[in-house]
């Protein structure tokens, strides 16, 4: 890999991606990705459509199964248990437990359509973390208040706007107390006037020290909130560094070309 960038923080990496490869049939989507994400940092992944950014994110909680390479979150190999020098694939139950260390926010919100906003937020704590109903409900109310939807708690997803749904989805992710939250183009499906509310919530979370990996097209958000900006193209990580470098003075022609088109 030609792009080695000194990590801006000295903290040990919370997420460690090594030599990640993924294909869909004959289409190679990821061709050897290496990435470190420090605890408490915000990493924005930019790149043209089809560059593999979403697939990379989805490999981090194993919604996609990579063919080669590893993802470590908090020193655990995602999808595997380590037995000496062997990585043995985990059972459904153990993989599910591992997934509680990561949470994901999706482009299309993916709220449970038959549950209210409150029930959506409570679902994980109640049925995965086995918290008490009282505890889960109090936490869910608190989180909905934090994303500005306290009075929408009993609305169904169909009764909420896209921006409101996405903020419920963020609250649902946070309710699991994850070590890192993966955002997969969280504002791409929103009407332009609704993007701001979601980005405000995300900026607040970033400044509160949440570890975030964000696949996005919002250059402005990356510039303001990111500690590290990663640019991907053609399944490869082209360059990474602080936003002041990658967005202002990119070293690679492909990054320059991409920024010219989106800015």
């Amino acid at each position, binding site marked *: 890999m030609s792009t080695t960038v000194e990590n801006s923080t000295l903290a040990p990496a919370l997420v460690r991606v090594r030599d990640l490869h993924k294909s869909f049939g004959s289409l190679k989507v990821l061709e050897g990705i290496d990435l470190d994400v420090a605890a408490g940092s915000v990493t924005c992944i930019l790149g043209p459509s089809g560059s593999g950014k979403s697939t990379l994110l989805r490999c981090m*909680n194993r*919604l996609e199964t990579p063919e080669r390479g590893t993802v470590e979150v908090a020193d655990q190999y995602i999808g595997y248990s380590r037995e000496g020098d062997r990585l043995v694939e985990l059972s*459904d*139950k153990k993989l*599910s*437990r*591992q*997934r*509680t260390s*990561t*949470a*994901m926010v*999706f482009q*299309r919100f*993916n*709220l*449970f*359509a*038959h*549950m209210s906003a409150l029930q959506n937020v409570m*679902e*994980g704590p109640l*049925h*995965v973390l086995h918290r008490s109903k009282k505890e889960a409900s109090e936490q869910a109310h608190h989180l909905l208040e934090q994303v500005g939807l306290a009075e929408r708690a009993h609305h*169904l997803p*169909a*009764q909420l706007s896209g921006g409101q749904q996405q903020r419920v*989805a963020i609250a*649902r*992710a946070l309710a*699991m107390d994850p070590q890192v939250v*993966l955002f997969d183009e969280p504002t791409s499906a929103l009407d332009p006037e609704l993007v701001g509310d979601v980005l405000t919530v995300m900026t607040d979370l970033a400044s509160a020290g949440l570890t975030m990996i964000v696949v996005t097209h919002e250059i402005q958000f990356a510039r303001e909130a990111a500690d590290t900006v990663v640019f991907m193209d053609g399944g490869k990580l082209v360059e990474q560094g602080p936003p002041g470098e990658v967005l202002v003075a990119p070293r690679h022609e492909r990054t320059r070309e991409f920024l010219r088109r989106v800015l």
Partner: protein
Amino acid sequence: MRTASTGMAEAAPTLTMHRRRRISEYFYWAVLVVVLFTLVRFVSTNENLRLDLVGDYLFSPVVLDGVKITLFLTAVGMLGGTVLGLVLAIMRISSSPVLRAVSATAVYASRSIPLLVQLLFWYFLASILPTITVRVPFGPDIWSANTNQLIGQIPAALIALSLFGAGYMAEIIRSGLMAVDRGQVEAAASLGMTTSLIMRRVTLPQATKIIIPPTINQFVSILKYSGIVMLIGVGDLMFQVSAVYGQNFQQIPLLIVATLWYGVLTGVLTIVQHALEKHFNGEWILPRRSSLRLEEGASS
């Protein structure tokens, strides 16, 4: 004529809207009246048609006994078919190739073997398997029973209806499971929910709504298919009316009796369907906006 305050546009003239006149409707009415008149005249003037017998037998103990048996066969057969169908549907979408293949084969068998064949097969099973024995492989017998005593008429009918319905229910349930948004399943997985928890908490509750209409449809089918059990002497509604017309030779009036009962039961199921649909719609879908209607000859 007034002008708008800006002086730019004229006020719209007062217009009334009228429904389009459909000449064809009058023709359809005319044909319908002629057909109904002919039918009523045929029924009311026909001396061979003993409609009085319909009233005599509709609530007779013999017929009511048959209705009870028909209800029992339909309810239990449908329950068996639904439970088996659910198992087959979940097997069909599992990650195991073995389970998927077994399910696909079972569904094919269930749908391809005629109900009549199934019914007779289970009824005559004793001819090829006189005793049913459960034994430890290569070991002693645990339990044994005479097939004829074990699978009598009613059990044979219930097994046949359940297995016959299972294939259809499996496909109905599978289509419901597949219709649930894949993104919600991924969201559930990302929260750390296991496959079975996702099925219980996310997929099945939403699939239920989708499968209500085809399931009730299947229920109505099984209700009427159950009449076939009269062939092995189960005393259902069809069996009872045929026993009566076997003696008095009044086939048509007694078939009308049976039809009225099937009609009532189908009506009850339809009401149940509407109630269920309303219940589930109210739960997580906004009420549909009533479609815009033109007022009849609206005047100003």
